[in-house]
């Protein structure tokens, strides 16, 4: 956005990533989404008298994975604390979270902002990431003035990931959120489903005059569940804050909600109504001790991380930094690319990269599909690239074959090339014969060429290509044509 030049925007993000464990963080109930209300809430989740929490080790492993992926300290000892407040969908009237000693401390994430010439990298520092349980859901519709409570989500494990106030624009905030989203899916700790609430962000936004060293008063935008809303909400909030200050007002600390319909943020509660959560260590849970051996075991099970994979792509496949970064933007893209290479051969790496980032990306984007939903599999596209690489077809024919594969008109590139007779004509005898026919039929163009009109040459090439239905190698056609014309 076009910022008022005199102002600097300061943003920190808090993200709740729902961890992809089968059971809840402190009970054995299932975490599956979409079940009938209150069918996945056991005695512990509904906080019957006498029940006690038991920590799910898988949730801890997710936290360890994350800590390793962002280069953070995995705390050898962290503490679960109770955050006390009353709400009907919080059955114990406290949330078990981590407060003073979180399991993941520090770390950072590198993001890319801008495009083309303006592309730059930036490191966002993480403050911490801690384990906690989710609350249930309050359903305010359909109950005729009453509120329904669904406790299926109560006790679902979350990793809350908190950044330093390092971002300076909505673009940077969105770039960070996207990078984090890709990372948690990459290391397989969160399905990243934003519609279902598996990945949701709160943005702390403040502004200050350029040169000012003190941070402005922040307002926290809660529950941003899409990147587009995040951008809109921050942009609105920034304008609102700047205007308010320029009008002589002050910013008061508050929690705000973004209304996607109006595109505006609206204060939900001010600092005065802020809860005193009365955090204290949960006496029902022992301190979480993580031995180095546990971290080592998890490290051994980790997939190759994006940074390492990017370096390998540059080193082993000779790709540019830009290509390597784009291809490692998500694990799905990277896996697709590597599967393509397996079919196309390593030497075709650059062509494969161009296709993934070019034709395939454009088509997926146009049809609003994720790469995991691509109708053309990596093996199919790799097979197509192999035929470009070995000269069987040209790039333009390849696009036709790609369309055919996309539309499910064949099992493989080879099958389509064979069935449609798209094989490139490289037999110079056959091409010469066609050129002779073209020259005979286009005497005027020949004359014009001899008179010095280079344009006429292109017309002749075009006629020859047309006569071969594009199957001839255009370069070869040009060479033979010049020879015939004695040029």
């Amino acid at each position, binding site marked *: 956005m076009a910022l008022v030049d005199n102002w600097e925007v300061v943003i920190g993000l808090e993200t709740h990533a729902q961890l992809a464990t089968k059971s809840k963080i402190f009970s054995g109930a299932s975490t599956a989404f979409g079940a009938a209300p209150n069918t996945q809430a056991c005695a512990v989740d509904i906080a019957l*008298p*006498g029940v006690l929490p038991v*920590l799910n080790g898988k949730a801890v492993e997710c936290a360890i994975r994350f800590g390793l992926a962002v280069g953070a300290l995995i705390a050898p000892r962290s503490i679960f604390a109770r955050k006390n407040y009353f709400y*009907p969908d919080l059955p114990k009237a406290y949330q078990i979270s981590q407060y003073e000693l979180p399991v993941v401390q520090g770390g950072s994430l590198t993001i890319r902002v801008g495009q083309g010439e303006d592309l730059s990298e930036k490191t966002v520092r993480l403050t911490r990431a801690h384990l906690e349980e989710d609350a249930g859901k309050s359903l305010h519709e359909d109950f005729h003035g009453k*509120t329904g409570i669904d406790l299926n989500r109560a006790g679902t494990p979350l990793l809350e990931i908190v950044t330093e106030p390092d971002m300076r624009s909505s673009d940077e905030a969105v770039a960070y959120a996207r990078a984090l989203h890709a990372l948690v899916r990459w290391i397989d700790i969160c399905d990243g489903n934003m519609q279902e609430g598996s990945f949701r962000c709160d943005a702390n936004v403040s502004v200050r005059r350029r040169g000012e060293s003190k941070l402005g008063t922040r307002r926290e935008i809660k529950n941003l569940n899409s990147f587009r809303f995040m951008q809109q909400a921050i942009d609105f909030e920034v304008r609102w804050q700047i205007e308010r200050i320029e009008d002589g007002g002050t910013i008061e600390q508050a929690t705000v909600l973004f209304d996607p319909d109006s595109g505006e943020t609206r204060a939900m509660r001010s600092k005065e109504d802020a809860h005193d959560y*009365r955090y204290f260590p949960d006496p029902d849970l022992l301190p979480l001790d993580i031995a180095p051996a546990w971290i080592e075991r998890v490290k051994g099970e980790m997939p190759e991380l994006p940074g390492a994979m990017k370096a390998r792509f540059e080193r082993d496949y000779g790709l540019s930094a830009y290509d390597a970064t784009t291809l490692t933007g998500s694990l799905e893209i990277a896996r697709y690319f590597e599967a393509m290479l397996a079919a196309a051969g390593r030497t075709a790496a650059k062509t494969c990269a161009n296709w993934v980032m070019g034709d395939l990306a454009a088509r997926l984007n146009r049809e609003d599909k994720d790469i995991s939903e691509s109708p053309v599999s990596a093996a199919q596209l790799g097979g197509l690239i192999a035929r470009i690489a070995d000269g069987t077809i040209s790039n333009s024919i390849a696009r036709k074959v790609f369309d055919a594969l996309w539309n499910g008109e064949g099992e493989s590139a080879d099958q389509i090339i064979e069935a449609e007779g798209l094989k490139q004509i490289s037999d110079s005898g056959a091409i010469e014969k066609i050129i002779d026919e073209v020259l005979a039929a286009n005497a005027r163009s020949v004359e014009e060429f001899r008179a010095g009109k280079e344009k006429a040459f292109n017309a002749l090439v075009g006629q020859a290509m047309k006569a071969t239905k594009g199957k001839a190698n255009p370069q070869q056609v040009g060479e033979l044509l010049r020879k015939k014309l004695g040029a």
Partner: protein
Amino acid sequence: MINASLSELSAALAAGRISSVELSTLFLDRIAALNPAINAFITVDHERTLAEARAADARRAAGDGGPLTGIPIAQKDIFVADGWLTTCGSKMLANFVGPYDAHVIAQFKRAGSVTLGKTNMDEFAMGSSNETSFFGPVRNPWNPGRVPGGSSGGSAACVAARMAPAATGTDTGGSIRQPAALCGLTGLKPTYGVVSRYGMIAFASSLDQAGPMARSAEDCALLLNAMAGFDARDSTSLDRPVEDYTRDLARPLVGLRIGLPREFFGPGMADDVRTAVEAALEQYRKLGARTVDISLPNSGLSVPAYYVIAPAECSSNLSRFDGVRYGYRAPEYGDLTDMYCKSRAQGFGAEVKRRILIGTYVLSHGYYDAYYLQAQKIRRLIAQDFVTAFADCDVIMGPTSPSVAFAHGARIADPVQMYLSDIYTISTNLAGLPGMSIPCGFGADEKSGNMPVGLQIIGNYFGEARMLGVAHQYQLATDWHSRMPAGFA
């Protein structure tokens, strides 16, 4: 039969001299006759009890009986029991029927014992006189004008009145030992973590521990054998090898070093209690033990530290009683906040509210460091005192309660006076150590009449078997534990 020990009852059941149904009926009849005057039980359910008794008889007949199979046990109403009203002594849960079995209940079921009923208690175990129960005060069988102690007052009174052969209790700051002392029973609070807290309605999670209340140390050992054991559902349950708590019963006392903390023998103790406790120590010396002077320098801080930590935890633990999902909900209310306020204002009694308020205050922003953190530091100092003391002794002894049972109403209006009832018991909870109380005589002065005095025995961590042996040897040489209140024969 009503005076028989658990092993005698077990032998009678095994020999077929009596059936569990007959035995249970005997005690149910006594409850019907005596409970109206004592109010030791909140819930008695003949059909459920007799059904369990019949099942126990069937197990015995099938040769599948253990030492406790068929023996009726009264359960403190703090333990959630499947199908049983489980009130925790509160209006808040007066309508709450347990949907599952607490670990302790399940362990007794596994052993084949029979649930005789749910015993009265101070509301949510907060009290030292059993006067805070929504279901009315419990009377001390030794003198109905006196309190039975608390919070496990119903359990203590029912065993003392021979309405049950044995009972369970829970002890957060003395709630097993103090009522045991005041009713002339033997009661044991195990090391924190020995008995699972799963299904035991939480008061102060880091202090709560369940244990047996019976007439003798031998009975307590048998009961603890059933109650103890690792339970994965309680993260603070300790995964240790199974113990036989009867193993040290016969062990002689020669060479036993008994630590006497000078802080436990100061001016706070009533003269009649002092006389009985000192006589008991003399008896121990006769049995071959020797006494050693020790010091627990920070024990004077135990009551203030306790009354920060326990309320802090309870203020959070009791927040789930919000009228939303179960328990009491105010019949009329406006909005959500009003529903919370009215339900909790009407559902909780005065002492529970007092502790919730204290706990909320000490955890509040700006006060946490001064109260809660400070109390936790004191807690560590108190625990360290015991570590130091146990270098010089095997067990520690002293009074359980500074006085014998006091009159109903005597302390209920003065919380601090009431809180001081637990001055000798609280430090063991703060340290997580095992402690027990055994009868060691009677108050002899005119003021207190003929009321039991308890001797407290504090052991080192996991010292339960040794403590039970120390108590048993004394009980072989004395008969305080087999005295019976007049009028309950």
